Structure formats: C-alpha cells, structure tokens
C-alpha cells in the first residue's frame, strides 16, 4: 500500500542504474536527510548530539569500511581498530606540521595513510584465507597498537602519551578542540559520512563492487573469469582502510577531542565487526542498523534502571548490559543470520503487498 513501484517505468539506462530507483525511496532519503540536517540540530541537546548521534555516525562509517572488506570482498579482518588509529595519528601529525590547512581536508587525507598501511597488511590475503587471514590481521592490530604507544613522535611527544586535539577553525568557526560546539562537530561528521556513504554506494554498485563480490563468492572462479585477485583484494583493503582511517580521525578530532592508544585496541575492532555482522554482511544500510543497535543499545540499557527507579549498583548494571548484549547477539543471529538489513528488506516486501498476505 505504502510502498509500491507500480507505474514507475524505467525508460533509460541511467534510471535503471539509479541507486534509489523507486520514488518512495527517494522521498524517504530526502526526509531522512532533512531530519538529520535540520530537525536534530534544532531539537537536539548536547547529550543527543554528543553521546548518540556523533558516535553513531562515526561507527557507521567504520562499519561501512569493514563491510566493504568483509561483507563485499569476503576478507575477514580484525585490525579495524588499528586502521582507525592510523587515521587518527596521521591526522594529528598532518595538522601539526601544516596547521593552516583546513582540518576537514586533513581528516579526509589521513585516510590515505591508513590505506597505505592497510594495503601493506593486506598482502598476506593473497595466500591466506578465512580465519587464518583474520588472525593475520591481528598481527597488524597488535603491531600498530604497540607503535602508537612506543613511538612518541606520533603523539607529538606529549607527556601524557595521548593525542591532544588542537583548536582548528573553518571560516572562523571552531570545528575541533575544546571550544567547538557539538552542533558544528555534528554537521562536520554528518557531511563527511553522507558524502562517503554516497561514494561507497556508487563503488559497490559499479564494476569494482561486482568484482569484489565475485571474489567473495568464489575467488578461484573469479580469477578464471579474468579478475585479477591481487588488485581486487588489495583495492578492497585500501578502500576499506581509507574509510576506517577517516572514521578514526573523526572519532578523535570530532568526538573525543583527545585519546590514548587504548581507544584503538582490539575491542574496537571487535565492536565494529559486531556492527557489520549484526547489521548484515554486504549491505550499506546494514552498517547503519548495526551501528545503531550495538552502540545505542547499551546506552539505552544503562538508562532504563535509572529512569524506572530500580535500585541497581552501577557495576551490576554494566555487567547486566554485557549479559543482555551477549544474549541478544545470539538471539539476533538465530532469528535472522543475514542481519538487520535482511529484516528491513523483508519488512519492505511485506509493505509492498500490504494489506494482502502475498
């Protein structure tokens, strides 16, 4: 009823290849963008923007990055946290050496450094597959983490050993540093995430995306039909690390405002992997769903006992959150192994024929 493509004919190739071929989808995306750009900043307080929306968007971007590698190309990686770290540290070094260039430029450029490191650690993927590769990427994770702690040059020799985000402005408005408001940071994050999601969507819908997917489905067969595995896999590592690097740079510069190496520890890698799998492997929208569920759910769970006046120790609440999240992950996987994106698809399908059963 709500959702039907009846009467919407595609009369040229451009329409056939469009990312949103159906009118309702286009309206939907415009509404979502309007809400994100206008409604949230208007009604949002500091808590909503800083604790929920900014991290949600940043994690979504990281999840998209990992999804390009794991979901689209089928290469399992546990080094996401470290690649995010490379982005953050590269951004810090760049803005320290060239303080007059716009910080947003450096946030995007730092992704290239992450890319380079990602390609380097992606080299074993040509010989190693599956879980063996996952463990190989752990080498990247632990080695880079060690570098972040042991090489003082990376964090500008600061005494605390942490990244201290300097004040940077854009047309006179502070974007990063202690004086930046959450609204400006939110706009910066939102714009970068929207742009990069759009680029990612074009990549995966085009030749490169199809190449990756054929590698995922069966790399031997892909090679036989003329896909160069070497290029395809390394390109996946490069693009994926680029996204993770930008997400990492945003995380430190536009969210935390300062961070230690521990932020990029292995837990972060696992968290992003959770998001990708719960959201749905090989779907971009799934990255957003997964990020929303995995990041916002624990916050919500922590708020519930406080709001209902249930007396519970903070430590116990934390532990209970672990239990519930763990159980929910299993439940979600049992209910729908293909992730939330698949549920969304089923929901849309149901809406198309509603109120009839089929």
């Amino acid at each position, binding site marked *: 009823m709500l959702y039907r493509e009846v009467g919407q004919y595609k009369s040229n190739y451009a329409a056939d290849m469009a990312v949103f071929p159906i009118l309702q989808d286009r309206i939907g995306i415009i509404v979502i963008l309007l809400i994100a750009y206008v409604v949230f900043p208007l009604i949002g307080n500091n808590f909503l923007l800083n604790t929920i929306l900014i991290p949600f968007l940043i994690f979504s971007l990281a999840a998209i990055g990992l999804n390009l590698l*794991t979901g689209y190309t089928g290469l*399992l990686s546990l080094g996401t946290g470290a690649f995010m770290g490379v982005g953050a540290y590269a951004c810090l070094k760049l803005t320290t050496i060239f303080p007059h260039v716009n910080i947003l430029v450096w946030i995007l450029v730092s992704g290239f450094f992450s890319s380079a490191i990602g390609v380097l650690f992606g080299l*074993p993927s040509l*010989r*190693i*597959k*599956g*879980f*063996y590769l996952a*463990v*190989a990427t*752990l*080498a990247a994770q*632990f*080695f880079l*983490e*060690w570098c972040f*702690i*042991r090489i003082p040059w990376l964090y500008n020799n600061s005494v605390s050993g942490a990244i201290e985000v300097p004040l940077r402005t854009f047309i006179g408005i502070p974007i990063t540093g202690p004086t930046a408001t959450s609204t400006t940071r939110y706009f910066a994050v939102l714009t970068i995430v929207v742009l990069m999601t759009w680029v990612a969507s074009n990549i995966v819908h085009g030749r490169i995306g199809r190449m990756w997917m054929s590698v995922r489905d*069966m790399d*031997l*067969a892909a090679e*036989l039909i003329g896909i160069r595995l070497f290029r395809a896999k390394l390109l996946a590592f490069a693009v994926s690390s680029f996204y993770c690097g930008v997400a990492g740079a945003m995380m430190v510069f536009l969210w935390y405002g300062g961070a230690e190496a521990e932020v990029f520890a*292995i837990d972060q890698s*696992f968290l992003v*992997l*959770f998001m990708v*799998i*719960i959201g749905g*492997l090989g779907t971009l929208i799934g990255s957003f769903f997964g990020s929303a569920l995995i990041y916002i759910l624990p916050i919500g769970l922590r708020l519930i006992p406080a709001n209902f006046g249930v007396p519970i120790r903070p*430590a*116990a609440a934390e*532990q*209970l*959150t*672990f*239990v*519930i*999240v*763990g*159980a*929910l*992950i*299993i439940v979600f*996987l*049992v209910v729908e*192994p293909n992730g939330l994106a698949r549920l969304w698809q089923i929901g849309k399908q149901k809406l198309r024929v509603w109120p009839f059963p089929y």
Partner: protein
Amino acid sequence: MHILYQIFVDPFMQMVHAPDLLMQTLWDGLVGGVLYSLIALGFVLIFKASGVFNFAQGIMVVFAALTLVGLHEHGIPAFVALGLTVLVMLVLAFAVERLMLRPLVNQSEIILFMATFGLTYFLIGFGQLVFGGNPKVMIAQDLYLPSGAIEWKGNFGFVSLQKIDIAAVIIASIMVAVLAVFFQRTRIGRALRAVADSHQAALSVGISLEQIWVIVWFAAGVVALTTGIMWGARSEVSFSLQIIALKALPVLILGGFTSIPGAIVGGLIIGIGEKLGEFYWGPLLGGGIENWLAYVIALGFLVFRPQGLFGEKIIERI
C-alpha cells in the same frame, strides 16, 4: 654496521656467554607455551568437531577458574567445588548446543564465529555478576598444587624452576595423553573423528551430531578448567587472562586449526619464540614486543604454509 651487529651477533653472544639465562628464558617460554597450547587445544577440539571457530575459549578459561574460586569462597570444600565446576561446564556445553549451535546449524562459519562472540560477552557479564569482577587468588593449596621453587644446578650455572610450572607441564602432558587415548581408542572418540571428517557421512551412519557437540564442548570446558587452574595458580584469576588467551590464535594458525599435535608444537614455538625475542631482541626496539611478536612469527610461517604447519592441505575446486 652497528645495528646489524646488535641484531645478528650480539644476542647469540649473550646466549653463549650466559647459558643459565638462556636456559631460564627457554624454560619460561616453555611453560608459557604449554599454557597457550592448552587454550589452543580447546579451540581445536571444537573446530574439528563442529567447524566453529570458538572465540569464547579464552573466556571459558576465566569463567571456569572463576567458578571454582567463587564456589570455594562460599565455603564449599575445594574438591567438591572442582566437581561442581565440572558440572557447570557440562551444563554450559548442553546450553550452548541447545540454544546456540542447534538453531544455527548449517549457517556460514562467520555467523557461528559471531555467535561465540555473543557467548563471550554473555560469560563476561555473567561471571562478573555472579562472582564479582575483582581478581581472585587461585586455591592452589587446597587443590594440593605445589608452590615454591627449586633450583636446578648444572655445569652451566643454575636455573630456578617454579614447582607450579613443573606441575603445569606434567598435568598438561597427562591431559594431552588422555585426550589422545580417548580419541584413538574409545567408541565416542571414533565418533568424534568421524564427525570431524564429514558431518554428513557421520550422520548417515547413525552418529548423533548433537550428542557429539555436547561432548566436545564439555571436553573443551574441562580443558579450559585445567588451563584456568594452572594459569590462575601462576598469577591470579582475573578477566585480563582473556586478552592473553588471544595468544592462542597465532598458535592455532601456526599449528593448523584441525591438528592437536599442531596445537601443542605451535604453542611451544610461540611460547619459546616470544620469550627469546623479548629477552634478546626486545631491548633493541624499546621492549614490549611480546605483544605482537607471536602474531608476526605466525604470519611469517603462514606465508609459506597457508594451512599451518600440521593443517590438512587445502584443496580448492571450482
């Protein structure tokens, strides 16, 4: 030139000049390696029988040790607590099979891997909720585990051996031997090997997969309990053990996911390699290289043998 000397000559000179230090490092590495092997053994047991990459093995070690100590704290005698802990691991095995493996049967590997992540989170939260999150002291005395150290004097100097380490090595060897006999000689062991070879063929000759899974998860639980006791007695029972348990992963790729001898040899290589590396080459890089050296060693091996040292040869077909 100087740096080359420091990398390629100096460490070996040190080894020759101070053989007692070398022996001590080797022994420390050996003991660490045995414990890595034990965790890897739990992984391999489960991976062989159900194809699940059980990320929760590390937390199962912590959970088992925590249950044991926690029960003892509530005034239950040590050996009764040990028995009860084994029972808890059995219940866990049943629960995992019924609630997690059975509904997820025939799903892709990564989904099952993810589910064990969920299990990890669950066990972390549950363990802390029931027994508290503070580090605990293992009840080594009550279990008649030896403490203290003996000094072994040879013609090269003397090496100090912790008695608990010796006990760990002996108990680990016994357990591996028992598992080997169990796999080779018993009816259930044969069934386990059949399942490892082919799920479908095993089903067709009337082996119950569900039953096998419970047995395997239970065996992995018992291995986890043993590891937890040993490791807990060496340091303490805390959730930081879980990070160390990640070291079992390079052991696994070194040995191959499906090989029990591989897990043991891999564990020893990683344990000894990382101690030697840390002791002799670590200072050159500013120390702390223990954290990633294991992974890099494993990565080096992998590039030449993608299926691990003892893994089955990977044959790919279109």
